[in-house]
Structures are given as structure tokens and as C-alpha cells.
């Protein structure tokens, strides 16, 4: 239960970090450490070098942009989304989701960027990023690129972040005035990874009907996915029937996996129920309390 020996570097600037990352392809990057350190303690990984990202202020900043967007440094702790009222107001779906990420002591260390790059299929942040249409900035020495959340995840624990690259920031576009959200997950115990969860952002039109929606399902498959057809089925509608039908559509389109927590069949059932409940929350339907 002790990690194998490693070399340790703690760069204090982004440039220094990128140079180290480029020069040391065998290194692991240490963000909050809440997933990586258990892996090291179990000796499931034994990297020769850890590059600690905790002393780089440039990638731990919050920036509120004039258009209402929020750009969050990758090293921002989960807890900031709970405790900073400006962040909660700016991004209410993220604020709702973080309360289900593990426990307070984990949220005090774990980071947004670490979670996104770890890409656990049952983690909350990938789904929130998808539902919010977040944009991710990836840096390498001398260059940066921006990737939409929908193009960031490539599979189980896999992303497009390549050799020599570092996720530095996540931009959450402005939260429109008529956007509503729903967030639900089922886990065995408070703070466990979700068996299945749903993050939904629903934009209402001037009449109060759904104009557009993004529904992200996590825990079900190898990575968080958008239920595109289910979201499209909501357009122009607002009632309980619409929420229920969207649940059925999502169930039929999203493949599920079996593991020691739950069968694929149970996960399919959860997709249908949780998509409905998340939409009931978002649409302000009374059934959200009863279900």
C-alpha cells in the first residue's frame, strides 16, 4: 500500500510544466491525486516521474468573461463549485453535480481537469461538460488547441489529450436566462461513483416550450454520452409525456455495460427512469418530487 519510488518535480509555471511534460513521456501528471494516488498506492502504476501541477497558479484561476462565460483553470478543485457563490450562479448544473462527487475531503483536493482527463465513465464532470457544451483548452509547448467536450472523450479512461499535452482550462459558455437543468444519479452509497447518472440542460423558448436540450448520460457505457435523439424529441414540448418519451428513446439508443455493480439490463432501466427524472426537474414538473 505504498507507492514505488518515483522522481518528483513541481513546476511553478505553465511553460516549465509543458517543457517537463514534453521531455518526459513516461511521467504521470499529478493533479488532485484522488484517483492517481490510490493507483500508485496499489502499485497498479509505477511511473518513474510525477509532475505535480499543484503549484502552477496560471491553471488554477477562474475568469468570468464579459459575455457571461466562465473559464475555469484545470486545477480548480471540485469544492470551488460548491462554495463560490459566483460560480454557483454562473453554472448551476455544475453546482448541482459536484455535491455527488465523492465526499468533502475528496472534493477539497480533486480537480475539474483531473477528473476530465481521467475520464472515468461514471464520473460527473464529463457529463456536465457535455451537457453544458464546454470547450477544453489543451496546451503543448508553443501551441494550444481548443476541443469541444463532445470531441474530448474517446473511450474508457481515454481522451484526445496526447503525448506532451496538458489540459489547462475549461470554458463553460454563458448560461442562458431561459436554461433549466436537471441532475440525478443512482449510486449504492452517498459519494460512490454512479451506476448511472444524467445531467440535462434544457433551453426554453419564449412560450415555455423546449427550444433545445442536451442530455448527458454517464455510468451506462464506456464514457459519458449525449442522448441526442432524446433531446431532439423534446423540442416544442414541455409536459410529462415529453419527459417520459425522451427517457424511452434514450434507453433505446444508448448501449450499456455490465459490471460487478449492476447488469446492463438494470443500467438500461436506469437510463429511462433517470432521463425522465432529470427532465422533470428541468421542466419544473411536480412528478420530480413524487418519482
Amino acid at each position, binding site marked *: 500500500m505504498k*507507492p514505488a519510488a518515483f522522481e518528483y518535480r513541481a513546476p511553478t509555471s505553465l511553460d516549465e510544466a509543458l517543457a517537463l511534460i514534453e521531455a518526459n513521456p513516461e511521467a504521470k501528471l499529478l493533479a488532485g491525486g484522488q484517483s492517481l494516488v490510490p493507483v500508485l498506492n*496499489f502499485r497498479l502504476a509505477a511511473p518513474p516521474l510525477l509532475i505535480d501541477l499543484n503549484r502552477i497558479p496560471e491553471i488554477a484561476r477562474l475568469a468570468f468573461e464579459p459575455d457571461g462565460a466562465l473559464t475555469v483553470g484545470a486545477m480548480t478543485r471540485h469544492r470551488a463549485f460548491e462554495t463560490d457563490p459566483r460560480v454557483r450562479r454562473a453554472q448551476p448544473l455544475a453546482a448541482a453535480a459536484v455535491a455527488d462527487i465523492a465526499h468533502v*475531503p*475528496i472534493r477539497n*483536493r480533486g480537480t475539474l481537469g483531473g477528473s476530465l482527463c481521467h475520464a472515468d465513465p461514471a464520473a460527473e464532470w464529463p457529463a456536465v461538460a457535455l451537457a453544458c457544451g464546454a470547450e477544453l483548452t489543451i496546451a503543448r509547448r508553443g501551441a494550444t488547441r481548443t476541443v469541444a467536450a463532445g470531441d474530448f472523450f474517446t473511450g474508457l479512461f481515454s481522451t484526445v489529450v496526447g503525448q506532451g499535452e496538458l489540459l489547462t482550462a475549461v470554458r463553460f459558455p454563458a448560461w442562458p436566462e431561459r436554461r433549466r437543468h436537471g441532475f440525478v444519479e443512482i449510486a449504492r452509497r452517498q*459519494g460512490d461513483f454512479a451506476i448511472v447518472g444524467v445531467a440535462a440542460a434544457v433551453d426554453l423558448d419564449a412560450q415555455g416550450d423546449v427550444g433545445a436540450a442536451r442530455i448527458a448520460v454517464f455510468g451506462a457505457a464506456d464514457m459519458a454520452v449525449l442522448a441526442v435523439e432524446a433531446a431532439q424529441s423534446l423540442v416544442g414540448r414541455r409536459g410529462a409525456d415529453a419527459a417520459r418519451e425522451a427517457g424511452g428513446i434514450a434507453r433505446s439508443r444508448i448501449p450499456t455495460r455490465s459490471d460487478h455493480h449492476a447488469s446492463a439490463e438494470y443500467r438500461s432501466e436506469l437510463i429511462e427512469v433517470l432521463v425522465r427524472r432529470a427532465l422533470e426537474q428541468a421542466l419544473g414538473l411536480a412528478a420530480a418530487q413524487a418519482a
Partner: protein
Amino acid sequence: MPVDIALTVNGQVARGTVEARQSLADFLREGLELTGTHLGCEHGACGACTVLVDGAAVRSCLMFAVQADGANVVTVEGLARGGELSPLQRAFREHHALQCGFCTPGFLVTATALLAENQNPTPAEVRAALSGSICRCTGYIGIVAAVLAAAQAGRE
């Protein structure tokens, strides 16, 4: 390669020379002989090793000692003042909030952090705050009661 570190632990300057792979928990226990911080699972699940780092409750098994260089750390040994138990510690004794005591340091530190930011928590908030700590003897009724009693005492 060993690294020299200097941090504040329970109000005192602490120095040490640590291997990069040494956890903060092991540094506290072995380097500083502060064995009140307990190691149960060593992968962040049980909560027994929870300490305050710059005021925030964190798992000391999931931080390396080198990462705490320059930080202000409070362990369970730092909760009592001048030989007097803290109000929370007294409440744990009065409400039978421990049996074997192995998990108690983590509960005390976690609840101390909760009460520092929320002086009037609801029972549900107490349970949510403590959800990352596991007790295998008493159950949680006495622990929740103790935290609520300490919160009330703190407001009076």
C-alpha cells in the same frame, strides 16, 4: 531523491527530509510521531487519515508530504487546547460517539472543518459532511448527535 520540507503542524514549525513517495500521513506518523492520524485503507475510502491542510479537510494518505511543504496542517492532536478537549471532542465523549476509536481522528477533523464553515448544520448536512468517513463499531447515530450537540454548544 530525498527532499527537505518545512511546514506548520498544529501551530509548530516542522521540518523533515522525505522521499517524494512518502505520504503526508506517514510523515506525520513516522517523521513527527503524531500517531493520532490513523491509516485504514490508504486509498482514500475510509477517512481515518483526514487532516486539515490550510483549513480544508483532506485525505493525508492521498497527499505526498512534499506537497505539504509550506502548508499549515492540523491533526487530531491539534484540536485540544492546553490539555483541554475541544467542545467537539467533549461531545464525542458525552454522546458515546466512539468505541474502538480507530476512525475517531478522521471524524473529529472532518467535523471540525464542517463546524468551522457551518455553525448551524442540519442533521442531513452533518451526515453528508461525514459520509466520507467509515465507522465499523458504533454506527453513526452517536457521532451525528455529538456533532449536532457541539454545534449547538458553539452557538450558545
